[in-house]
């Protein structure tokens, strides 16, 4: 058994050290800032800050990055409510009722309930993570290379089939991501491939460059194109929700926790999906569905709860299988790998103090966010209206510094530049971005596990279907693809990816 109360308590002891508390706090602040700023999301935010954390010890660094992540998921709601700018796609449902409440002068209660709901769902989600992840990791101890290959294959196929109606474009996006990561050296033999004789290309394409380019740079291009300037702010009168408000929302909070957590375990079910599902569920079971869209307080509680439950749930597959289910998780995975920590069952076995410290710090971080955000809402709302002409160039600066400092190669910055332009065109032309990001992060592990599997089986690919667990994963992957193809054939619309979240 990989879980024990002793480990968890030790984790809390580590997380409560002054240094780690400080980094969790800084992470929460930076994360909320990233969530509040519309031009930058959790994935690109973590990606551009990742290289700068190398001065910290691994535990503090990951504690900080996790804090940035859930802080960002949290911060999106503030601006959605106060200024009707959802910082991330997952905050769109929050804006629907939250901004209505704000217009009625109830921005305070809306923000309060968003904070409380995030806290309740986030913490319950963490309880789920605490017990579920070691359980799954124990199960995954039996995994060999074929199972890992099949698992990652399944993860990719789910992400593709969930990326809207554009299955073919999802496959193309994935293939391009894999192609980019093939460039450079063969991880096993070190032989050059697809370099066209160029020395620069030998270094290979770093996935941080891919992520920062696809998200941050292309987002800046979108905003530059529309000449986004400034926005109106509503006035905030009363601050706290009443007990009656909270009582009214308890059901919504608990239901959205369930929805957010369990859907969040699936690869590809980003918060942008689960928040809409939770919102829709509340509307369906409500006795007064007509209030939704006109300032229903449950309409704020439900998506915010689902949002945070999903972000906690995303850590389950990440820690227990090493499988990122969303781009931001892929960036965190990259962060772990930068420190030589390979997520998966062995992480629980070999570095229990690390895993449990990070998990424990998330409980603390959730409390910090609650305490921090209620009084600071006014400040965050003001930051959100930093005009884009100032913010945009600063995002570009952070992207350049972030990608350069991974390996101190100007080549990486150029790659980011190219992927920025590519991301812009992909989004314009309806190609989903998530499969490309996940493929570029997973590529090396995919290739290594494939090679190892074929070594075990002496070259026979049958190994993936003769081993039961791997056969199940491959089967699920095929099902996901077949379902996607079926949906495609039935619909006669051209392929356009849904505008997706980067969560």
């Amino acid at each position: 058994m990989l879980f024990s109360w002793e480990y968890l308590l030790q984790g809390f002891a580590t997380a409560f050290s002054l240094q780690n508390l400080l980094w969790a706090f800084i992470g929460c602040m930076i994360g909320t800032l990233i969530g509040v700023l519309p031009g930058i999301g959790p994935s690109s935010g973590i990606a551009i800050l990742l290289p700068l954390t190398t001065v910290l010890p691994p535990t503090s660094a990951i504690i900080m990055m996790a804090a940035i992540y859930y802080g960002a998921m949290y911060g999106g709601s503030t601006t959605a409510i106060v200024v009707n700018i959802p910082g991330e796609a997952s905050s769109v449902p929050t804006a629907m009722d939250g901004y209505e409440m704000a217009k009625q002068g109830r921005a305070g209660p809306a923000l309060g309930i968003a904070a409380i709901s995030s806290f309740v769902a986030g913490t319950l989600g963490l309880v789920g993570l605490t017990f579920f992840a070691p359980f799954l990791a124990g199960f995954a101890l039996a995994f060999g290379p074929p199972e890992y290959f099949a698992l990652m294959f399944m993860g990719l196929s789910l992400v593709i089939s969930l990326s809207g109606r554009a299955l073919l474009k999802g496959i193309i996006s994935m293939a391009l991501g894999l192609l980019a990561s093939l460039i450079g050296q063969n991880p096993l033999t070190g032989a050059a491939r697809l370099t066209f004789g160029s020395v620069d290309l030998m270094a290979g394409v770093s996935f941080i460059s891919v992520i920062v380019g696809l998200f941050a740079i292309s987002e800046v291009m979108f905003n530059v194109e529309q000449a986004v300037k400034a926005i109106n702010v509503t006035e905030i009168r009363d601050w706290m929700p009443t007990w009656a408000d909270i009582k009214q929302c308890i059901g919504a909070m608990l239901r959205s926790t369930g929805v957010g957590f369990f859907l969040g375990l699936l690869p590809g079910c980003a918060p942008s999906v689960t928040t809409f599902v939770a919102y829709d569920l509340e509307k369906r079971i409500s006795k007064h569905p007509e209030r939704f869209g006109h300032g229903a307080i449950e309409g704020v509680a439900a998506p915010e709860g689902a949002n945070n439950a999903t972000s906690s749930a995303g850590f389950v597959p990440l820690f227990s299988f090493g499988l990122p289910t969303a781009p931001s998780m892929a960036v965190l995975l990259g962060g772990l790998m930068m420190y030589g920590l390979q997520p998966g069952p062995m992480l629980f076995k070999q570095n229990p103090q690390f895993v449990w410290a990070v998990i424990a710090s998330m409980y603390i971080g959730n409390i910090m966010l609650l305490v921090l955000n209620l009084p600071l809402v006014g400040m965050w709302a003001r930051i959100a209206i930093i005009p884009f002409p100032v913010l945009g160039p600063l995002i570009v600066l952070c992207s350049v510094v972030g990608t350069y400092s991974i390996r101190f190669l100007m080549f990486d910055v150029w790659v980011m530049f190219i992927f920025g332009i590519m991301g812009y065109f992909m989004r314009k032309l309806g190609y989903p971005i998530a499969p490309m990001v996940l493929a570029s992060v997973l590529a090396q592990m995919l290739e290594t596990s494939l090679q190892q599997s074929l070594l075990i089986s002496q070259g026979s690919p049958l190994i993936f279907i003769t081993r039961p667990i791997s056969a199940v994963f491959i089967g699920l992957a095929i099902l996901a693809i077949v379902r996607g193809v079926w949906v495609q054939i039935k619909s006669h619309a051209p392929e356009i990816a849904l505008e997706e979240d980067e969560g």
Partner: protein
Amino acid sequence: MKTQRSADIAGGCFLTFLGLVTIFAATRIKGGMEERLPPRTLPYVIGFIILVSGVFLAIRSWRFRGEDPVIKWPDRPGTIRIFVTLVSLLIYIALMGLLGLPLSTFLFISFLVWYLGRYRILYALFIGFLSGLISYILFIYLLELSFPVGPFLVR
């Protein structure tokens, strides 16, 4: 490239070409067949997937008869703004090795803030100066990361 259909036909053709290039480049990878996973296999597979999906996308869109959404390309001023932003980023990256991080940052941020926001030049220069200064203090002085410092500053 005005509508989704024409863009997808063009995209399909481009991907077909890219798939062919990949397969061609893969034939030139050195390495023996003695490995369990021959070094050319994965590039071939990926190239093949790109080729086939490209052909498929092009044909599918070619034969597509239905409501054809118009792609929201930027208007003329928007295109110019994107172009200028990208060119200034290009120059920024290219100059960084020569001028160093702080100075090139100062120039880049000042220009772009001024260009995108039409603020007073002094305000833009102030933001640029602040960014350059912070990047120097934070990345070069405090974190001691090996960024190019440029000819006028010391590490």
